[in-house]
């Protein structure tokens, strides 16, 4: 470990880092703009100047940019040197010459890196007395606001959007002191990662338009650590509340999971919490006054629970606690997943693989570090966007690593590496049904039907491990692809295979496993990552409860009258309507707990208002079986809205008075879950228990400069109410409490003295860009063991189109397929309209053209959609977008006819 002398004091620093990283890791405040831990150094802003001395004798030294100078043993530098300080102050003065006087109306104010750095550099008074440059703004869509006057030309936006995330439509234009960061012309930003510009931009050029609708400064938010609810990756977020409304969601750094970035669905898809469609009152239907109070509704439910058989339907978007509480209430054998049989079958296979311990499941960080990636059948751009971003980094970084191995260039030297690497890329094979933006960085792509993709997988596995069965009747194209891909995977040290549930195909999962396991036998550290559908799909699948279809079978056998309790699950979104209707018609009583009104809640005889993720504590298990805690951000003003597990515990007390007083806290529920299901071992340690205190103090959700305490509610009553008491966690609803570093699962927001913006995360990290102090939050429930793999022998036949019949498959859309995210207006406006997609040949054979209305007959119902011809879709497949608002679930994987054609 090299020792460097900073202002004549020796410090041990990590080799291979630059001086800026070293200083920041040591906790020394050094201003910077263009450097970003995830994107490296380019030395553009000249803000991080320090003095470097030749040796001990040298008194003059020379100014260098600390981000462009590597750490050397025995090096002597000075951060506090007067010349260096004057230089930094002058640089920020230059950057400020054109910066407008609009901090009061700038959404970045109060969490602005430029404000922080200006104060840190000591530039207080303006000496430039000439006119300021101005720029026209652009319309960048409903999610991002553009105010170009504020730009300081650090190039971070383009380096993120264009270089890091691969977006094409944002770039730098014009020349000299007129450079302009924007689009060629007004229009919606195309990249699904555009929201990160808000955090990447050190000033207020790009700001969050959804926050603007109900603007609140960072210091006024009540924040809590949360977990994104919109896909299975479980990205860590910080959600902020003010005046009883969820105001924004920002990234919460987790080195192993999302790092510095979120996708737009996760960042902006929070507005369902504030929706007018929320269920706010317990309802007892079919009586003169349906709205009921807490006690009335519980008394009514008592009559429904006693003397009836109970069936519980769980939910992949409800927390583990709520699902387990329902299971405890109805009994394990009466608890069903609320997910169709076909999907449960696929998910069960994934859980089997992960639980067997044969193979390592990489975190997103490990995917970024992979040197060859095979995506087998999963459209990760739409179903797991941050994973697609990680795959992109692996492709770009492999080439960079290769270069740095050849030449003595440090990995942080972004500009130099880009020059050398040019178009060189790592290996990515993107095997999907439809083209994806990832294809342009892929070395190999293949577009085919799910079964054919699985066959390709088995062919690769056969090449890697010849003892596995050969794929019969394989075409030459398939074998050639298999040969290229297997060669690249064999050459790699850390190959990663990605598969998922979006094709509803079990063979794909098995094929992906066979490849990964075969690679592992070659003594490689191969990883196998799966993508699931919802934020807690993995947690629910790990309970190994039966599918919804079994619940239907159960209810048809039942001799007693049945009371069904449905937990936070709109069954009509994933179960074909006929089947769901059949289930409901057999239920004597239906109790539904949910957050928003939907078709399932319409069926409820008793409806209980459940808390959303922002109003509840809950544990969610992500795609790599990492259990993570989302803490309550705010208590709903309406006390009728309660966490589902609290409602369910109350119901349990109704029928079983002995349980009174047990499992009061979340950790009690989780310990009971661990005892019942050993596969969840460790889940109770995800976050500190509710009585955790640091020096007797809780961790405040509010910043030390939270304002308006004595006026916020003064219009209702001039006497301030008692601060809210949080009995479920060690976070408090006040400004008072422990102000030091909290344990990483309980970081409510990132802030450090002098660092008001999100860049303060460096102060929470072991080293700049490294793990959070005390370890990253979340506990992985499955780890690799030495269990030998069991390969599959069953290879599907090649997919063949049938005459007059099509295989119905879902197409997932980042904006549109989410149940909750579409409540954000800006996301809803970017959702596609329903359509049906056929290949060109199929459409021509049926004599159809683009835009024709076609009717699809499935599950005993006929649906009419406009036709879109998809050039790259394999013949014999019909794609319909999944989960659009107002669309019913179809039987994915079934063969359907186009019964009639309406011209």
């Amino acid at each position, binding site marked *: 470990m090299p020792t460097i002398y900073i202002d004549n004091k020796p410090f041990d620093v990590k080799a291979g880092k630059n001086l800026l990283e070293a200083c920041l890791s040591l906790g020394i405040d050094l201003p910077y703009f263009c450097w970003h831990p995830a994107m490296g150094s380019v030395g553009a802003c000249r803000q991080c100047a320090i003095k470097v001395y030749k040796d001990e004798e040298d008194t003059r030294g020379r100014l260098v940019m600390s981000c462009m100078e590597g750490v050397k043993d025995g090096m002597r530098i000075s951060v506090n040197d007067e010349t260096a300080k004057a230089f930094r102050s002058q640089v920020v003065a230059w950057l400020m010459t054109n910066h407008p006087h609009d901090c009061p109306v700038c959404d970045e104010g109060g969490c602005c890196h430029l404000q922080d750095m200006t104060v840190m550099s000591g530039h207080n008074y303006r000496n430039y007395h000439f006119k300021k440059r101005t720029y026209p703004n652009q319309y960048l869509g409903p999610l991002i606001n553009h105010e170009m006057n504020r730009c300081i030309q650090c190039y971070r936006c383009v380096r993120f959007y264009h270089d890091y995330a691969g977006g094409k439509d944002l770039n730098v234009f*014009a020349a000299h002191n007129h450079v302009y960061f924007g689009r060629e012309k007004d229009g919606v930003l195309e990249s699904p990662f555009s929201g990160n510009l808000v955090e990447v931009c050190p000033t207020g050029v790009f700001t969050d338009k959804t926050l603007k609708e109900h603007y609140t400064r960072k210091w006024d938010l009540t924040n809590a650590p949360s977990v994104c609810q919109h896909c299975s990756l479980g990205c860590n977020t910080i959600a902020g509340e003010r005046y009883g409304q969820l105001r924004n969601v920002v990234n919460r750094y987790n080195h192993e999971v999302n790092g510095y970035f979120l996708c737009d669905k996760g960042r902006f898809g929070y507005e369902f919490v504030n929706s007018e469609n929320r269920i706010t009152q317990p309802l007892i239907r079919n009586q003169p006054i349906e709205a009921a109070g807490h006690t009335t509704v519980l008394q009514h439910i008592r009559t429904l629970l006693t003397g009836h058989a109970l069936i519980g339907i769980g939910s992949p978007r409800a927390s583990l606690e709520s699902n387990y509480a329902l299971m405890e209430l109805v009994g394990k054998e009466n608890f069903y997943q609320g997910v169709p049989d076909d999907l449960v079958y696929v998910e069960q296979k994934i859980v089997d693989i992960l639980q067997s311990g044969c193979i390592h499941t990489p975190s997103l960080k490990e995917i970024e570090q992979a040197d060859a990636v095979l995506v087998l059948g999963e459209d990760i751009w739409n179903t797991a966007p941050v994973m697609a971003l990680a795959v992109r980094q692996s492709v770009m970084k492999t080439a960079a690593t290769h270069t740095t191995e050849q030449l003595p260039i440090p990995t942080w030297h972004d500009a130099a590496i880009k020059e050398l690497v040019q178009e060189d890329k790592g290996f990515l094979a993107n095997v999907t049904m439809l083209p994806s933006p990832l294809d342009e960085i892929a070395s190999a792509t293949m577009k085919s039907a799910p079964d054919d993709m699985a066959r390709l997988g088995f062919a690769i596995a056969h090449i890697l491990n010849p003892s596995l069965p050969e794929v019969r009747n394989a075409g030459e194209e398939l074998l050639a692809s298999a040969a290229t891909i297997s060669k690249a995977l064999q050459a790699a040290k850390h190959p990663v295979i990605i598969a998922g549930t979006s094709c509803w195909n079990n063979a794909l999962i098995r094929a992906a496993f066979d490849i990964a396991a075969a690679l592992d036998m070659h003594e490689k550290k191969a990883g196998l990552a799966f993508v699931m559908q919802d934020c807690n799909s993995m947690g629910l699948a790990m309970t190994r409860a039966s599918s919804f279809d079994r619940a239907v079978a159960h209810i048809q056998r039942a001799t007693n009258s049945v009371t069904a309790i449905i937990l936070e699950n709109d069954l009509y979104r994933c179960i074909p309507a006929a089947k769901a209707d059949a289930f409901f018609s057999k239920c004597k009583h239906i109790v539904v707990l949910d957050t928003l009104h939907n078709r399932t809640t319409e069926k409820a005889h008793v409806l209980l208002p459940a808390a959303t993720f922002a109003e509840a504590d809950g544990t969610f298990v992500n795609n790599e079986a990492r259990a993570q805690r989302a803490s309550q951000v705010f208590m709903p003003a309406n006390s009728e809205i309660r966490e589902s597990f609290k409602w369910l515990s109350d119901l349990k007390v109704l029928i079983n008075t002995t349980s009174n007083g047990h499992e009061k806290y979340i950790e009690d529920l989780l310990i009971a879950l661990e005892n019942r299901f050993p596969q969840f071992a460790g889940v109770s340690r995800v976050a500190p228990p509710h009585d955790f205190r640091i020096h007797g103090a809780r961790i405040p959700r509010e910043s030390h400069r939270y304002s308006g305490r004595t006026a916020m509610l003064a219009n209702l009553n*001039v006497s301030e109410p008692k601060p809210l008491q949080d009995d479920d966690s060690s976070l408090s609803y006040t400004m008072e409490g422990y102000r030091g570093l909290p344990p990483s699962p309980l970081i409510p927001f990132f802030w450090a003295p002098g660092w008001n913006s999100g860049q303060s995360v460096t102060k929470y990290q072991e080293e700049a860009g490294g793990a959070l102090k005390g370890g990253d939050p979340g506990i992985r429930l499955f780890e690799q063991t030495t269990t030998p793999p069991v390969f599959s022998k069953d290879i599907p036949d090649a997919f063949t189109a049938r005459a007059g019949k099509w295989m119905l498959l879902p197409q997932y859309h980042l904006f549109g397929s989410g149940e909750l995210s579409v409540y954000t207006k800006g996301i809803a406006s970017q959702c596609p309209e329903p359509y049906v997609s056929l290949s060109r040949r199929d459409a021509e054979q049926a004599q159809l053209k683009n835009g024709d209305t076609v009717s699809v007959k499935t599950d005993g119902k006929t649906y009419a959609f406009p036709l879109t011809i998809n050039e790259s879709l394999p013949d014999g497949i019909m794609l319909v977008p999944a989960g659009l608002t107002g669309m019913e679930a179809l039987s994915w994987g079934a063969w359907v006819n186009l019964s009639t054609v309406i011209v």
Partner: protein
Amino acid sequence: MISHLRTMWLVFRHLFQKKVTVQYPEEKVPLYPRWRGRIVLTKDPDGGERCVGCYLCAAACPVDCIALQATENEEGRRYPEFFRINFSRCIFCGYCEEACPTYAIQLIPDFEMAEYKRQDLVYEKEDLLINSEGKYPGYNFYNVAGLDAGVKEKGKGKDEETPVDIKSLLP
């Protein structure tokens, strides 16, 4: 004994001096223009609200008695949706006025705010807003801020160049 006599003499002498007691409320006390009394929200020369809802007064307030919510009109001009001061908590320190970047919030020479009910000391925006520019006539924040919020176009403000033609590569 001498001390007692001296005191009595001094008291007697005061009988002939000018009285300092002011016969309030019949007689008003003289208040200076910078006296820190009742808080008001002032208006721009163009009659628009000066407050841009930046939350700095609320943050500066040591007793946290200011609460507001910013919102925007169609032209992008910020204004407070509600603005509430709980005068039963206010200590008239004037930090809010000092923090205000737009001269919107001002303390004026008026202290006659007593109420029988504490609840009546909660002032909403309607109670605070006055139809005057207060101590700083002529100032309009949007004339000197860079952005276009319907007050002036980009480049038309004080010390602003005309907007850059981004299609031009001329030096």
